C-alpha cells in the first residue's frame, strides 16, 4: 500500500512532465500548480490524463466537486454557480493544506481545481484507488 508521501512523490514527476519543467524547478507537496506553476485548464486536463495512465484510475469531470460536496445535496453546496457558505467550508476542509488567502469569499463551482496543491491531487488519486478497492504499489 502506497503511503501518502509515496503518492506525492509519484505525482510530482507527472506535474513536472505536464509543463516540461526541469529538476531545477522546485515542486513539492505544497506547490499550487495553478498559482505557483501557472497551470492552465489544458495543463490540468493533461495532468489528469497522466494521473489516469500512471495509476490506472478514471477521473471523470466533477470528481473534485463531488468530493468537496460530500454528503451535502447540490442546493446546500452550490447556489447559482457559486459555493454556499457551507460549501466553502467543506472545500476549505478538503483542501486544508492550501493557503487560506487564495480562497476568495465567492468561489465559482467550476474553479475548485485552482485551489489544489500537488498533495491534493495525490489525495484525489488515493481516494479513487481506495474506491476501486485496489492496492497498487509504486512502480518505477
Amino acid at each position, binding site marked *: 500500500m502506497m503511503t501518502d508521501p509515496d503518492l506525492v512523490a509519484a505525482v510530482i514527476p507527472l506535474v513536472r512532465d505536464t509543463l516540461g519543467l526541469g529538476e531545477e524547478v522546485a515542486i513539492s507537496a505544497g506547490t499550487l500548480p495553478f498559482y505557483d506553476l501557472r497551470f492552465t*485548464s*489544458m495543463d490540468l*486536463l*493533461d495532468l489528469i*490524463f497522466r494521473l489516469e495512465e500512471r495509476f490506472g484510475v*478514471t477521473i*471523470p*469531470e466533477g470528481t473534485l466537486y463531488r468530493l468537496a460536496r460530500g454528503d451535502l445535496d447540490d442546493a446546500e453546496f452550490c447556489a447559482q454557480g457559486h459555493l454556499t457558505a457551507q460549501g466553502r467550508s467543506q472545500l476549505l476542509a478538503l483542501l486544508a493544506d492550501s493557503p487560506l488567502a487564495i480562497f476568495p469569499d465567492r468561489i465559482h463551482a467550476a474553479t475548485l481545481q485552482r485551489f489544489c496543491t500537488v498533495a491534493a491531487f495525490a489525495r484525489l488519486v488515493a481516494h479513487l484507488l481506495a474506491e476501486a478497492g485496489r492496492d497498487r504499489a509504486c512502480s518505477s
Partner: protein
Amino acid sequence: MFELIEAIDIDVDAGALAGAASGAGAGRARGRAWVDANHPLLRDHFPDAPVLPGTWALELAAQVAGPFVEELDRHRDQSNPGPDRGRPRWAVLAMVRSAKLKQPLWLPAALEIEARTMRVDAATVTVRVDIGRAPLSSEVAVTAELTFGLVEAPAGSSAVAQREARLARWKAAF
C-alpha cells in the same frame, strides 16, 4: 487546406456517450484525403522526395476530428436540460497532447483518417486520431491525441455557411 479532405463519415454512439464515465468509445469518424506530390507548398519538403509534413497530418486530423466532436456535442445537447440548450458550439483545437510520426507518408497518397473519443467533458473533448495510407488497417503512420475546446458558434456569417456546405459535401461523398 480544406481541399485535401475528400469525404467524411461520422458515427456517434449515443448510448456510449451517455453511459461511459469518460466518454471513451462514444463514436468514430472516418475521413479520406488525397495529397498530391505536386502540391506547390511541398516543393521544398523535399525536392524530388515529397513527404507529408507532420503539421499537415495534424491539420488533416483536426479537420476530421473537429466535425466529429461537434456532432458528439449536438447529440449530448439533446439531453441538456439547461438554458443553453440548442446553442451550437464549434470545436476549436486546443491541445495536441501527443503526436507520433511513426513512418513517413510519401506522396502522392490516398489517406484514411480515423478519430475515436478518449474523453468527453463538458467543455472539452479529447480524441485519438490515426492516419495512414488507405486502407488504414494496413499500417498507421501517424497517431495523435487532440483536445478540442467547445466554444459558442458564431451565427449568420458567410464563413459559417461555407463551412456547413463543405461538411455536407464531405459527408455526401463518403
